[in-house]
């Protein structure tokens, strides 16, 4: 493989990049040849996006050498990388949906009639030429908003191909595509490969990677841990290399004897993301939920919490929960929801720690319409202490706290509301290590008090470390319901990626 380095498009050697104390890349060697599709794999935080951003000139390496077509280069800005022909295909979010396909393709680099005056005819012509050259079947005058996801992805690729693209980087290009659309996209990618472009393909979906890639590179903790021609490897090997590490004693799960069934979910369906999901959870139990993005894991939580409608039967302590009736009904049934994005859906950032802590508990604390400030303050102070929130006072605006302490406030809100079924969506995202451990301890305390915890996390070590049981979702279906002892990272990843057990 390495003897062909002479004609490589891009060669990176010993790339190191740190952010503060965190080493995101620790001496990575990476190479792309013309007419080749390289699949880049790794868990969240393995260093994939840092590597991509180094290639596109967004980040500069602290150490290491980059060669482009055999010559040393410094990719100091995204503009430099673009000039060389390095293009990134963004997800469809970067398109202006009110503009036409042609206008989007030329966006930012419009041909001008006079300075500042767009030459609309030339815009259209450039788009027509480009679409014809790559044999894309797209109407240049169609509004992007009227296109399907696969077609939008093609517009993105066209945008990247305008100019003299030689290396195309694709980050999760299929995350919003259906199976047929993926085939369509793959046809396009193979076509581009045939023309001598180099492609880097990042995805979490293993079967796809094997279908489209020529070579596979696995990153873990900022290092390249595995590299192989696709033909000479298999999913089990790749997954093993991705996971790689032992579970540390970092996860202080205290297992308690589970009590009676607290939550039972039967045939829960919420089209299009959730399909006939059945499981149950006992009092004192932590049930981990694993799945890739779009597998339905977040939908499952928001449906249980009444924020989306669905069909099926959900019972808490035997009492049926009407579905889709809003959060207040779910809260009366004992649910509490710690959402994935605490800034967007969790906290009233400008308001005090106290107000945020007691927000969901007001109905419990004050049966009438009136507040009692003394009681409110006592409750908040007690919760600050119990959750070990580091704050100057209960009156501090919650937006001024660190991420970990903000997360403790969101969690404390449901402890204050005496929720008996806690739904946690990525409870430690963007949280420092110290706060993580504290959050795990609070989870232990909650289950020791008899609460049931459903936890979604994309961090496998955390999920395996904290869960008593694990369920795996794949394309909206529950494909595995495992006891902690039966679960291994390899097995979970395999279930999540393929929907089937490892062989």
């Amino acid at each position, binding site marked *: 493989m390495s003897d062909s380095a002479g004609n490589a498009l891009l060669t990176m050697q010993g790339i190191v990049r740190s952010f503060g104390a965190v080493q995101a890349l620790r001496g990575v060697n990476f190479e792309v040849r013309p007419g080749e599709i390289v699949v880049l794999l790794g868990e969240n935080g393995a260093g994939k996006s840092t590597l991509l951003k180094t290639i596109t000139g967004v980040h500069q390496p602290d150490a290491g050498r980059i060669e482009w077509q055999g010559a040393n280069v410094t990719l100091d800005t995204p503009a430099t990388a673009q000039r060389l022909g390095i293009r990134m295909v963004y997800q469809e979010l970067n398109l202006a949906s009110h503009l036409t396909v042609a206008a989007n393709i030329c966006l930012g680099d419009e041909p001008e009639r006079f300075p500042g005056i767009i030459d609309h005819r030339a815009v259209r012509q450039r788009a027509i030429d480009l679409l014809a050259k790559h044999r894309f079947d797209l109407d240049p005058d169609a509004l992007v908003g009227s296109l399907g996801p696969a077609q939008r992805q093609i517009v993105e690729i066209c945008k990247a191909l305008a100019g003299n693209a030689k290396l195309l980087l694709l980050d999760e290009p299929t995350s919003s595509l259906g199976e047929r659309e993926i085939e369509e996209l793959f046809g396009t990618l193979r076509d581009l490969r045939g023309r001598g472009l180099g492609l880097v393909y990042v995805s979490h979906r293993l079967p796809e990677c094997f279908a489209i890639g020529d070579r596979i590179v696995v990153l873990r903790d900022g290092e390249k841990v595995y590299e192989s021609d696709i033909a000479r490897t298999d999913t089990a090997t790749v997954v093993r290399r991705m996971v790689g590490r032992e579970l540390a004693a970092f996860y202080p799960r205290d297992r308690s004897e589970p009590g009676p069934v607290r939550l039972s979910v039967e045939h829960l369906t919420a089209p299009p993301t959730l399909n006939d999901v059945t499981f149950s959870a006992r009092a004192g139990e932590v049930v981990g939920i694993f799945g890739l993005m779009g597998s339905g894991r977040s939908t499952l939580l928001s449906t249980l919490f009444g924020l989306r409608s669905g069909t099926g039967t959900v019972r808490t302590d035997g009492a049926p929960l009407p579905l889709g009736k809003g959060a*207040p009904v779910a809260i009366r049934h004992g649910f509490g929801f710690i959402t994935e994005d605490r800034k967007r859906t969790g906290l*009233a950032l400008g308001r005090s720690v106290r107000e945020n802590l007691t927000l969901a508990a007001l*109905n419990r604390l004050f049966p009438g319409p009136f507040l009692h400030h003394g009681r409110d303050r006592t409750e908040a102070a007690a919760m600050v202490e119990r959750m070990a929130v580091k704050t100057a006072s209960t009156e501090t605006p919650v937006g001024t706290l660190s991420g970990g302490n903000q997360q403790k406030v969101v969690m404390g809100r449901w402890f204050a509301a005496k929720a008996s079924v806690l739904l946690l969506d990525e409870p430690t995202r963007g949280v420092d290590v110290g706060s993580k451990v504290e959050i795990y301890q609070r989870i232990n305390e909650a289950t020791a008090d008899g609460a049931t915890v459903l936890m979604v996390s994309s961090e496998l070590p955390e999920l395996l470390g904290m869960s008593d049981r694990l369920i795996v979702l794949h394309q909206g279906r529950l494909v595995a319901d495992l006891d902690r002892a039966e679960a291994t990272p390899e097995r979970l990843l395999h279930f999540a990626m393929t929907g089937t057990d490892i062989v």
Partner: protein
Amino acid sequence: MNLTLAKRLLPAASLLLLTIFFAVKSPTFLTVENAFTLANQYAYLLIIGIGATVVIVAGGIDLSVGSVLALSGIAAAQVMVQRGWPVWAGCLCGVGVGAAIGLLNGLIVTRLRVPAFIATLGTLLIARGLALRIAKGVTIDGTPDGFNLLASGRPFGLPAPLITIVLVAVLVAFLLNQTKFGRYVYAIGSNPEAARVSGIRTGQVTLLVYVLGGALAGLAGLIETARLGSGNPTGGSGYELDVVTAVVVGGASLQGGEGRVSGTILGALLIAVLHNGSNLLGVDPFDQNIYIGILIIGAVAFDQFLRRMR
């Protein structure tokens, strides 16, 4: 120095300085009679402003208040003068009409999901049109003397509008600070999604907020009608902007989640004193607009400055 405190003290300090300035310059400024005039003339600004504080804290805006003031006044005058309804029924009708337009605003915002700015811009026009239609384009004169006492009455030697203002201020401040409803209003204004996920029925609360704002605009309409002794279908034009000015100068954020009744009272008084004092000194009314313009920009610029300091 505590920055939130600085922010709260600024309007109070400005008001004090301005009062001293006018008191020194004009012998008639700091008299009981002038204070009573002020209360009468600017009752609308205070009462509507207090209602608008709740709307703005909830993250909304109500541009219809000036038209609602006119429509409520016309409705009350019409039923009392032309249909002979008793005074209490006329009053109920005026406040009820205000509340009804508020309900309409709330329904358009929460059910039809029209942004509050647009929804209340629409009802601004609708309410104005209705007022003109009912009054056939002219004033409805001759409201009963008993009704006019709402403006001219002097219970306990105090002007009736002043008493109304105090009652409204105490009631709304209590609502915002001492009830679950008030807590929810702040939460919704700060982050509606987080409020919803915390189990707050955000739609219902928002609806009530607009009803309250509309009812208080209706009440202001009654006082304005009583003051003039007639219902005026073109009254209250442009009041919505005076009100927003008072609320914002008083420290509320148009982004929602922030604002207090006491702040709005200070903001409204600042504007009232600026107008009233300038009139006494014979300052050109055109120039007064310039001062008010500088005031609102200055107040918000100062607030932004404090935020950067944080």
